Every structure is written in structure tokens, then in C-alpha cells.
């Protein structure tokens, strides 16, 4: 059965070139970077090389890059690490309502520990309200965390504008620190720190054709951080634990490659994406696009389809070998649909009927055309058994 994978925002395959570069560190080159013998020194060189490569892409210093085990871990390290380092200077933190759960749950946990959190609203397209941000900044604000691009609806935030607002507010001081989760932005958007104006940034490997289980945190040398994982002093005592050399090497190579292909690939994907969106909205009645139509990740198509439910749509597509994800409540214990969709003011019934298609490097127009053949049939079938009647427009 033909398999069409359209869930690249969840994870991607590992590019074969990247895999090849990783393999020596899973085979003969197995040293522990903390060992002082030759085997260890070779491993150490590999991760320092990886670090330097990433620093070049970000236009940062190598010592400002910390490797972690995932994007989630980087987010946790940023939120908890900064909150605890500066807690005697203030206890107010600002996040957006559409942050990744890694950021939101960390903020909620800090709330239970006595910190005050402001959850910024977004507009109907998912962009945060800058006026609300300005009003929320206070004397005791120590951290602002707003994701660069959203994993569900693809909306891109005006990060440099937000940075300007924060820098203007803090004048010559350091606080509040500005963190952004850029896991979805890598490979699609500019990551240069000086352009963005952020102090801290999260990245990970699983969405850029690199391996899973590795991430990094860029943290400006001016910013203090309390580590989460302590022990043997690795990563400048910011993240203990024997480094997974193969994954780190893979991550850096993947980011290098993604950066190299970025401009051309973004163009190609944008064209495909817009074609896909146009045809869905035209050929499937009672459908709508979620997120911003233009300030949007090049590969993200998130739609709500009236009268049918997301998990059903997803499973029927799955049967046809088309792999996507949904904003319906099927995986959450709370029975609530996607918090991101609800934050944009979308009706819950439409949030339950949402599908996310995220295109990738191997996605072709042929594949999209095939999906466009199958999807209307599935929608039709589910609508014939649905108890919801849609008014014919």
C-alpha cells in the first residue's frame, strides 16, 4: 500500500546522509566525551564540532549552546532554570496561551510553586496581541516565553517585534529574559539570534530530518540558568549525563543541511501548501483554514471540516495509507480538543473536526493530488453517517 506521510510536524525520517554521519559514533567511535583517553577525546571533538556548527547557524558563541535530550527538556530547562535563577528578582512570567505543552505545563507547575503567570491571548489567526504583551510587562517580570512558530496551526509570531518591545521595556537591565521555542521554525525560518533578538532559544532534531532524543538550548552568556539535571558536570555543568554523541552529531548535521536547503525548500513547500489549501477549501464544502493564511509555516495545512470528527477522519485516511494528525480530543484525558485551536476562538465542534497535514522534503504534488482524491470521499462517507446537518451555503 502506498504510504503518504504528512505528519512532519510530529517528526520526520532521518535523512540517509545524516544517518551515515551518525553511524561511526554508534560503532567504532564509541568513546565517552568525558574520558581523557584518545577514544574520549575523539568523541569530545565530535560534539564540540557539532556545537560550533550550530553556533555558526545561530550566529552565537559555541559556549552558548547546551545539548539536551529533547525540545521538551530544553523548554523545561529554560522555564525552570531561569525562573529559579532569578526568583529573588521577581516571580512574574509571561507565556502565550498557544505555547507547546512543555512550556505551558512548566509554567503551571511554577504557578503551583508560587510564581505568577500571565497567559497572553492570541487573535483568531493565532498571533499574540502586542498591546496585551506591553500591558502585561511589570517590574517583577523575569521571563517571557513565546514560541517562534506554532506546531499545530503553523502561525509565525513577530519575534523581532516582541524582542523590541521587551528590550525597550527593560532598558539597560537584563530582565525579563526572552525565550522562544523554535523547534518548528528550524529549517523554515531564520534562526539568527541577532535578527530575532531573543536571549534563549529551544531547538530539537526530530523535525529537521535528524534523530529523535536530542535537542539544544541557546542561552545568551549574560543569562543565568539553574540546571535541572546535575551530576558529572557535562555541558558546562548545565546538563549532566553522558552525551549521546551520535545524536548530537546527527542533530548538528541535520540543522546544517536544513539551513542550506531552507530558502529553496520553503519556497517549494509554500507553493504546494497554498495549492493544497486552495483545493481543500474549494472542493470540500463547509471547511475552513485554521491559523494565519500568510504568516504561516511553509509546510503547515490545518483545516476544520464541518459535521465530521477529527479522529474518524484521521483513521480513515490512515487506512488509505495517508498519515496525518488531528486537533480532536482523542488523545487527551481531559476530553478537551486542542488548546491552540480553542485559544484562537474556534468553536469546540470545529476544533473537534480539525486535521493537520504537514508536508515534507519528499512530498510531491502527485501525493497531494492523491490525498485530494481520497479526502472528499472520506468526508462524504462520514457526513452521511453524521448526526450533524450542515446548512447548504
Amino acid at each position, binding site marked *: 500500500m502506498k504510504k503518504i506521510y504528512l505528519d512532519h510536524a510530529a517528526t520526520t525520517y532521518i535523512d540517509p546522509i545524516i544517518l551515515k554521519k551518525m553511524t561511526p559514533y554508534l560503532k567504532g567511535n564509541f568513546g565517552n566525551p568525558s574520558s581523557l583517553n584518545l577514544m574520549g577525546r575523539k568523541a569530545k571533538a565530535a560534539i564540540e564540532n557539532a556545537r560550533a556548527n550550530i553556533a555558526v547557524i545561530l550566529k552565537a558563541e559555541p559556549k552558548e549552546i547546551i545539548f539536551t535530550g529533547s525540545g521538551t527538556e530544553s523548554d523545561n530547562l529554560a522555564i525552570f532554570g531561569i525562573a529559579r535563577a532569578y526568583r529573588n528578582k521577581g516571580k512574574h512570567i509571561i507565556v502565550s496561551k498557544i505555547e507547546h505543552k512543555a512550556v505551558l505545563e512548566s509554567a503551571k507547575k511554577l504557578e503551583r510553586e508560587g510564581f505568577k503567570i500571565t497567559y497572553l491571548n492570541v487573535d483568531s489567526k493565532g498571533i499574540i496581541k502586542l498591546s496585551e504583551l506591553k500591558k502585561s510587562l511589570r517590574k517583577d517580570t523575569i521571563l517571557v516565553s513565546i514560541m517562534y512558530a506554532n506546531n499545530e496551526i503553523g502561525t509565525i509570531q513577530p519575534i523581532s517585534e516582541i524582542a523590541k518591545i521587551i528590550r525597550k521595556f527593560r532598558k539597560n537591565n537584563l530582565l525579563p529574559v526572552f525565550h522562544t521555542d523554535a523547534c518548528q521554525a528550524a529549517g523554515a525560518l531564520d534562526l539568527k539570534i541577532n535578527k530575532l533578538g531573543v536571549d534563549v532559544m529551544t531547538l530539537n532534531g526530530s523535525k529537521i530530518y535528524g534523530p529523535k532524543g536530542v535537542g539544544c538550548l541557546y542561552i545568551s552568556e549574560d543569562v543565568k540558568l539553574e540546571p535541572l539535571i546535575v551530576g558529572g558536570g557535562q555541558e558546562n555543568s548545565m546538563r549532566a549525563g553522558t552525551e549521546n554523541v551520535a545524536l548530537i552529531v546527527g542533530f548538528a548535521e541535520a540543522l546544517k543541511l536544513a539551513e542550506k536547503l531552507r530558502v529553496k525548500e520553503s519556497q517549494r513547500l509554500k507553493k504546494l501548501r497554498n495549492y493544497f489549501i486552495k483545493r481543500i477549501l474549494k472542493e470540500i464544502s463547509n471547511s475552513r483554514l485554521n491559523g494565519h493564511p500568510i504568516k504561516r509555516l511553509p509546510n503547515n495545512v490545518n483545516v476544520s471540516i464541518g*459535521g465530521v470528527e477529527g479522529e*474518524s477522519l484521521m483513521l480513515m485516511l490512515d487506512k488509505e495509507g495517508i498519515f496525518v494528525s488531528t486537533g480532536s*480530543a482523542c488523545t487527551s484525558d481531559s476530553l478537551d480538543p486542542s488548546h491552540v485551536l480553542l485559544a484562537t476562538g474556534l*468553536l469546540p465542534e470545529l476544533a473537534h473536526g480539525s486535521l493537520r497535514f504537514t508536508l515534507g522534503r519528499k512530498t510531491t504534488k502527485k501525493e497531494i493530488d492523491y490525498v485530494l482524491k481520497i479526502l472528499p470521499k472520506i468526508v462524504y462517507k462520514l457526513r452521511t453517517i453524521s*448526526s450533524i446537518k450542515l446548512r447548504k451555503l
Partner: protein
Amino acid sequence: MKNEKIKKIKGDVISRDKYKEESWIYSEIVRDHFFNPRNVLLDDTHYEAGGTGTAGDPACGDMMTVWIKVDAESQKIKECKWRTFGCASAIASTSMMSVMITENGGMDIKKAMHLKPQQILERLGGLPDRKFHCSVLGDIALREAINDYLRKYESSRN
């Protein structure tokens, strides 16, 4: 005295097929009823139901409508049709319920009033706890339909 504490596995408990490589998200029975739902009412404009009931709410992600036809003499459910907006578990639950109350000549409506979501779940081969409410809704819709029938039946007799 049995002192075994049956450890409850939280999270996605599916069927025995859980560890097979090519396993589906729910049980094979659920899969069958989802891809081949029984007793769907495709066109309700001319269907003369004995009773109708609805449960759930699109805002909550599941809503089902049930239509039944009852044999006046035997008080057994002859036919049960339905339509559902919802996930695979919701569609499979309503489908299975419609089979359970019409098989073997049809269920007596008194017995059908006592139908429990647990019974539907048993026939489906189980569902994760977080999907329990799908079977509850099917049950509620059926009860509404039976009560609707009883109300109409009572008033037609008087």
C-alpha cells in the same frame, strides 16, 4: 481471600492486539464497526420511527441520534437506526448497540432500558477508559428513544 491488586494500566489500554506490530488503535471489533457501521440511517426524511433520542453535543465532540421501531405486541425492538458525529469509538459504540438490541428477534424494551455502557464495551472488546463516555452516550440516546416511544405509545392508547 483474594488479595491480588489488579494493577490498572493507565493510558492507552487497547486490546490484546496491543503489542502486534501492525495493530490498530482499538480492538478488531471496534475497527470492524467503524469501517463497516451497521444500521446507519442514511435518509431520515421518510423514516417513521416509533421513538427518537439524541445524546451528546458537538461541542464535546460526540453526538448521536437513535431511531427505533418497536413491535407493539411483543414490545420488542424490531429496528434501530442511528447517526453519529464523533470519533471511531463513538461510531463503533452506536453501531454495536444497534446490533445488540435488534439481534435474536429484538430486545424487549424493558430490558433495553437496562442496557449498560459496560455491556456495549464488553461486546466491543473493550475501549480505553478515556473513551468510556462514547458508550455512555449511545446508552443515553437509546433510553431517550425508548422513553419517546413509550410517551407516544401511552398517548395513542388514551
